[in-house]
């Protein structure tokens, strides 16, 4: 059986390692072959960018060579796919190589898409990109006060990030001794300050305690750079001296170019994690159109289901597990305390009071991540 994994981010890496470990004997016997195609030889721990933006981690802390994370037996090529020929069970790469498969795993992810909001990229700081995180830290370090506006594009990965960024901005300025010179304004696209009601109910009194103003139903339309004003689709506006953006995201262009999904999101069965109409094509993480959080933990839990099902398909001819929608998120409440949210398709998250120990657990996870990517945790 030829298993082809397209994408070397968190989801693709965990799936490949999971399958390689489950099927090591079959790989040694030559009965199973796992190949991974990625656009880069680097693997980035994307949640770490938030800490880079606040000067708590450096870029080299959150990057490893992709080949160092993969189980022996996985064939790895830095050669991104350009054409998916799903009817023929093969792909063609940028370098012109052709890879045939029996089972395909697509984990190409998503990326910030500034094109749809004029002025946003030029005007804003963001922790969502590597260059952006470094630039944001320099800006925060030099900021002397004024109006700080946080704006949120749709859709975006890591849905808890807007709240975390805002809490961390508050504390960063407090520790710098300039909080009294900063007017903080948070905006959010829907009717409450976070899409999960329990989180919104918990965060509102925190915002009030921190004297953070907020406006709901604020979807970014455009940024008037000359006048330092953000306009919303709803007809309101926000002035800023420092604009911090959670940018809108899109799936990778190769997905849309191959006609596999509007916006780069592949229509995916929310339980089987297979591409609609394609039983031998698995999709996971940010790449799916499943209406759940685009976050690393989603990819992690999905990858365990897919890994088990690939092994089961080889051994019994059919998949055995369904994905229950499980997502787990740490939530940084400031720079020293955190809480968490765990939920699935059925059970909503319950939010507990933030603690220092949960923050330390998150700090620890930032180091354990590499074991997680290897499929060990």
């Amino acid at each position, binding site marked *: 059986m030829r298993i082809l994994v397209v994408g070397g981010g968190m989801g693709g890496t965990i799936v490949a390692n999971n399958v390689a470990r489950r099927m090591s004997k079959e790989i040694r016997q030559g009965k199973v072959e796992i190949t991974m195609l990625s656009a880069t030889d680097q693997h980035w721990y994307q949640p770490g960018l938030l800490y880079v933006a606040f000067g708590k981690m450096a870029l080299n802390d959150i990057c490893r060579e992709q080949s160092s994370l993969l189980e022996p037996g996985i064939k790895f090529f830095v050669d991104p796919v350009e054409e998916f020929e799903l009817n023929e069970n093969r792909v063609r790469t940028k370098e012109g190589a052709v890879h045939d498969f029996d089972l395909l795993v697509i984990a190409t992810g998503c990326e910030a898409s500034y094109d*749809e909001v004029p002025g946003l990229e030029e005007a804003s700081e963001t922790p969502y990109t590597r260059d952006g995180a470094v630039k944001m830290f320099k800006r925060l370090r030099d900021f002397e006060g004024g109006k700080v506006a946080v704006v949120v594009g*749709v*859709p975006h990965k890591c*849905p808890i990030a807007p709240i975390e960024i805002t809490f961390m901005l508050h504390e960063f300025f407090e520790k710098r001794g300039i909080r009294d010179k900063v007017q903080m304004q948070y905006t959010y*696209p*829907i*009717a409450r300050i976070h*899409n*999960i*009601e329990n989180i919104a109910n918990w965060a509102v009194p925190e915002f009030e305690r921190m004297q953070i103003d907020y406006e709901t*139903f604020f*979807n970014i339309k455009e940024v008037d750079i000359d006048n330092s004003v953000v306009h919303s*689709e*709803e*007809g309101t506006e926000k002035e800023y001296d420092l604009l911090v953006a959670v940018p*809108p995201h899109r799936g990778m262009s190769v997905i849309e170019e191959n006609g596999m999904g*509007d*916006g780069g999101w592949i229509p995916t069965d929310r339980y089987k994690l297979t591409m609609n109409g394609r039983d031998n094509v698995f999709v996971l993480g940010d790449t799916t159109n499943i*209406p*759940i*959080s685009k976050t690393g933990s989603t990819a992690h839990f999905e990858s365990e289901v897919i890994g088990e099902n690939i092994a089961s398909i080889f051994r019994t001819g059919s998949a055995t597990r369904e994905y229950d*929608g499980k*997502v787990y998120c740490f939530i940084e409440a400031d720079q020293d305390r955190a809480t968490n949210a765990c*939920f699935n*398709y*059925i059970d*909503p*998250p319950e939010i507990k009071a933030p603690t220092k120990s949960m923050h330390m657990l998150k700090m620890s996870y930032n180091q354990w991540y590499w074991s997680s990517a290897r499929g060990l945790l």
Partner: protein
Amino acid sequence: MSETTVIDACNTFCPGPLMELIGFMKRADIGDELELLSTDQGSASDVPAWIAKVGHEMISSEKVGEIWHIKVRKMK
């Protein structure tokens, strides 16, 4: 995008039905009809409020069993 798009946001908490609708609305063409399916009671009030605020059109909203079927049209 086709003229009628069904967005199945049932049994999800994050990003939630309205956020899903906003994402689809951005990619839709003016005049397109979108139907949001939601099991979140809040959608019955949140969606019409957002549609009115932005200036899109509410077509209908009804609960069938446990699922809200909310039809809207992109107007701008």
